[in-house]
């Protein structure tokens, strides 16, 4: 920005006065929101004695939420109109950024993402509060307290500060540009992923406050029917956000994976799994009038774990263990977050232990069924899902635990998560396949197993068929029995067997759901949503397992005249990048990949960004999507310099670096000193494994300054005398490659299409389930929802099978 000389007086035009008003308005909106929301809390609190205050409570909540939106709109207008006198705007945007990135920049930093959380939360609060009926009082109070806390955080962690340097003599100046939006963030995902996932986070507040209010009011029955669509919405939106995050990582980060168990990923994954458990719990309660206590607890956990995760990732306790970095947070704001988390958690848990469990046992219907009936299997499934969520949360907290135990961070690697979670994942997938055949009524294991026997048989057959298909050489998979994996923490088995078992698991789950879907289709086509969603999950997991388990990977360098071989392809660079377009964000570099079976042109993105002190190469991977596999090509920053830094030589000196020995013999001057056209010609001897070369690079004094030339040194290198020192008669030599080296990572990832397809089917199933439920709700509530029902009779109850 204004950094050429920090001491030079700045001379920018005055900032428009409207922008200062908007900035002040943003600040005011935040304070107003806190006051209005606290007012709403007090009014609702006292409305027990004087019901007139209810109206005040409602208005306070409405205006408080609107104020938060106001703060967001203020910030957005500063971004859209490029008001770089504001620190946050300058820190995350720059002049002439495309409109979509100006908007995305709003939430690309700490302050903005808190504001986004506050707004999505307020949005869901406004939507849900009028529909909470008898729960409204005790729903609004914790909701308003939470939003007020976020407002408090925003008051300290404000995006509306003006850069101190931009204020001169009481005038605020408008700097021409900002520091810019991190180039790695600049693609369409940054526009859609954060709002989606924050919508999911915002919706969790609804579940938490509803559970809280069910416990305070002592009515643990009615809320279940009311909260169900909200829980489904949370699950769907959060799930969509998670998938988007994974696809973003896959498409842009260049390491060929969707998921890395990074703390920030886990922070969104844990609430999602808890929400999934909650949705299943709601089905039990709706169908059987049981699992009441569990639901009261599960309603609050997604939100509380998200707040915990937010605190963890923003507090700095995780040290360097996350690839997502957050700027240090304002201390006071961090305290508010911690205080809210502490009080919220304690209040919720105490309420649950003291009251929630009691009212649950009072209203709970008796358990009449035995054997592996649907309720028992759901309960088991919920317990396992809770296990996945809890264990992931523990893994995410390990850096903090070890910080307190050993005084330093330790980090669980990806493999450790896989080892621990596979203990839970395997039974979960078995249940996904088993439950569709279980009935709400009494059932014996024998009866259930007989029902799934066909599915097991088909799955075993298809697993064998799949393995045969994978042996096809054109797929490039090497079913090598010598390769082993450690599973479940201790057992060593051939990787092939392990992957085959996992394929069987996902096939079993998928086929079982397809089977029941077809059976149901004839009777009640709209109620297949649950089956479709679970089919989606199975396919999604199959894609994850296959693309990871059978992945192959090779790294190499490609030069213009030297193609490289990898994974059966010959990779060549047909032409050098166009120098004119090297700073163009949309620039592509083409590589030809040829093999006997399949040839294509890969065009990974490649350009340079320039800041005041350095030039940095940006690259985007190329993904060649084929029905059976992806070929994933990640380009690294091209290497031009043989040495990271030029070497300085005194006359007669010999130095060796990176296996190259250079002797400097001195330089001669040609022409008049100090006149244009004067040339200094250096004499160097350069030798490497391939030979010894005499080179005479020169520097010419021209009107534009010193101009070095770059004569070739052998076939590999060019020599450039980048600087000479008149005093010591020494010279600095830069050794360059004649042709740039392009580092390439080539991945072969089978069946990635299943990941995309699975996510799509999952979403479809979710929508279907949500839609069907809506239709049902318009019908008068009858007792049939709670009537147990066998599978043999028309499975109307299947509408209750969860979204995911």
């Amino acid at each position, binding site marked *: 920005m204004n950094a050429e000389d920090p001491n030079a007086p700045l001379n920018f035009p005055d900032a428009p006065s409207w922008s200062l008003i908007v900035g002040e308005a943003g600040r005011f909106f935040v304070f107003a929101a806190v006051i209005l929301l606290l007012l709403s809390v007090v009014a609702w609190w006292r409305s027990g004695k004087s019901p007139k205050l209810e109206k005040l409570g409602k208005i306070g909540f409405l205006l408080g939420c609107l104020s938060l939106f106001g703060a967001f709109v203020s910030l957005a207008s500063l971004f859209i109109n490029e008001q770089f006198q504001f620190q946050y705007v300058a820190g995350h945007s720059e002049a002439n950024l495309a409109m979509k990135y100006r908007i995305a920049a709003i939430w690309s930093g700490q302050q903005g993402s808190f504001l986004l959380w506050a707004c999505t939360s307020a949005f869901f609060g406004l939507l849900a509060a009028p529909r909470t009926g008898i729960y409204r009082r005790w729903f609004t109070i914790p909701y308003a307290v939470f939003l007020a806390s976020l407002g408090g955080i925003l008051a300290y962690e404000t995006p509306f500060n003006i850069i101190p340097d931009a204020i001169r003599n009481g005038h605020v100046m408008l700097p021409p540009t900002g520091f810019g939006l991190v180039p790695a963030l600049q693609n369409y995902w940054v526009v859609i992923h954060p709002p989606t996932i924050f919508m999911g986070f915002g919706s969790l507040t609804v579940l938490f406050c509803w559970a809280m209010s069910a416990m305070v009011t002592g009515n643990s029955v009615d809320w279940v029917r009311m909260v169900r669509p909200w829980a489904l919405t949370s699950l769907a939106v959060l799930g969509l956000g998670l998938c988007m995050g994974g696809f973003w990582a896959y498409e842009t980060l260049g390491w060929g994976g969707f998921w890395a168990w990074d703390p920030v990923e886990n922070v969104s994954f844990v609430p999602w799994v808890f929400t999934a458990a909650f949705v299943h719990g709601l089905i039990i309660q709706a169908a059987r009038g049981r699992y009441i206590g569990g639901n009261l607890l599960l309603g609050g956990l997604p939100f509380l774990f998200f707040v915990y995760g937010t605190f963890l990732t923003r507090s700095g306790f995780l040290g*360097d263990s996350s690839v997502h970095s957050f700027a240090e947070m304002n201390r006071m704001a961090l305290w508010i977050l911690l205080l809210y988390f502490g009080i919220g958690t304690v209040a919720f848990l105490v309420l649950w232990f003291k009251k929630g469990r009691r009212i649950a046992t009072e209203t709970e219907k008796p358990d009449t069924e035995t054997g592996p009936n649907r309720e028992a299997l759901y309960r088991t499934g919920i317990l396992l899902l809770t296990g996945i969520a809890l264990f992931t949360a523990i893994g995410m907290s390990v850096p903090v635990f070890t910080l307190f135990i050993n005084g330093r961070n330790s980090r669980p690697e990806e493999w450790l998560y896989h080892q621990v979670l596979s203990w839970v994942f395997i039974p979960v997938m078995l249940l996904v396949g088993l439950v569709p055949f279980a009935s709400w009524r009494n059932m014996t294991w024998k009866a259930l197993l007989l029902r799934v026997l066909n599915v097991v048989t088909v799955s075993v057959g298809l697993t064998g068929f799949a393995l045969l298909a994978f042996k096809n050489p054109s797929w490039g998979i090497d079913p090598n029995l010598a390769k082993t994996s450690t599973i479940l923490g201790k057992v060593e088995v051939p990787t092939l067997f392990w992957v085959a078992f996992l394929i069987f698991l996902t096939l079993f789950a998928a086929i079982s759901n397809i089977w029941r879907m077809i059976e149901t289709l004839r009777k009640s086509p709209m109620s297949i949503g649950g089956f479709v969603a679970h089919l989606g999950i199975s396919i999604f997991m199959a894609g994850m397992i296959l693309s990871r388990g059978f992945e192959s990977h090779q790294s190499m360098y490609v030069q213009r005249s030297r193609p490289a071989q990898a994974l059966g392809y010959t990779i060549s660079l047909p032409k050098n990048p166009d120098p004119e377009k090297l700073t163009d964000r949309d620039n592509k570099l083409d590589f030809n990949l040829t093999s006997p079976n399949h040839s294509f042109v890969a065009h990974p993105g490649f350009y340079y960004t320039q800041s005041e002190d350095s030039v940095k190469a940006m690259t985007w991977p190329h993904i060649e999507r084929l029905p059976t596999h992806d070929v994933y090509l990640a380009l*690294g920053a091209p290497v031009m310099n043989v040495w990271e830094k030029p070497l300085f030589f005194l006359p007669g000196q010999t130095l060796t670096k990176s296996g190259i020995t250079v002797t400097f013999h001195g330089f001669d001057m040609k022409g008049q000193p100090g006149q244009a056209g004067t040339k200094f010609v250096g004499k160097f001897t350069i030798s490497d494994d391939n030979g010894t070369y005499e080179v005479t690079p020169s520097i010419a004094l021209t009107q534009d300054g010193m101009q070095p030339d770059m004569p070739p040194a052998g076939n590999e290198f060019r020599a450039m005398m980048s600087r000479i020192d008149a005093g010591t008669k020494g010279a600095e030599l830069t050794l360059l490659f004649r042709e740039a080296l392009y580092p390439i990572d080539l991945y072969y990832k089978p069946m990635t299409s299943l990941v995309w397809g699975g996510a799509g089917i999952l979403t479809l199933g979710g929508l279907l389930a949500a839609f069907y439920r809506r239709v049902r709700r318009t019908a008068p509530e009858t007792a049939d929802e709670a009537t147990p029902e066998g599978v043999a009779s028309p499975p109307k109850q299947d509408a209750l099978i969860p979204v995911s």
Partner: protein
Amino acid sequence: MKNKRFGSVLTGVLIAGAILGVSVAFIANASPYVTVSEARKSGATNVHLKGKLEKDSVKNDFKDHAITFRIRDNNNEEATIVYTGPPQDMSEATDVVAIGTMQGDQFHSEKLLIKCPSKYEGGNKAKV
């Protein structure tokens, strides 16, 4: 009723046991951040070694696809790192976390976390 109480107590104990077991498994197997001397002493595999990059020490060995460089930890001790993972741009790195194992005098790593001085936090820094 008594049976039920027993059931919930058992569930509670099982859950607590699972949580404890998983915590221990995670903590025991998590790869720690170590100093250079600890990495030398323990010979443990899969540790995180963090330090400041010595700019002049970076060597690209193109034949072996290896990058060799030295880092200096907080105790001012040096270690040579041989990195053989996917290509990395070290030109702007200041701090490096290498994940791997000390073998003899060299720390062999296939995974690096690179910290660059970020200009993008500049706006916030001005406040502090």
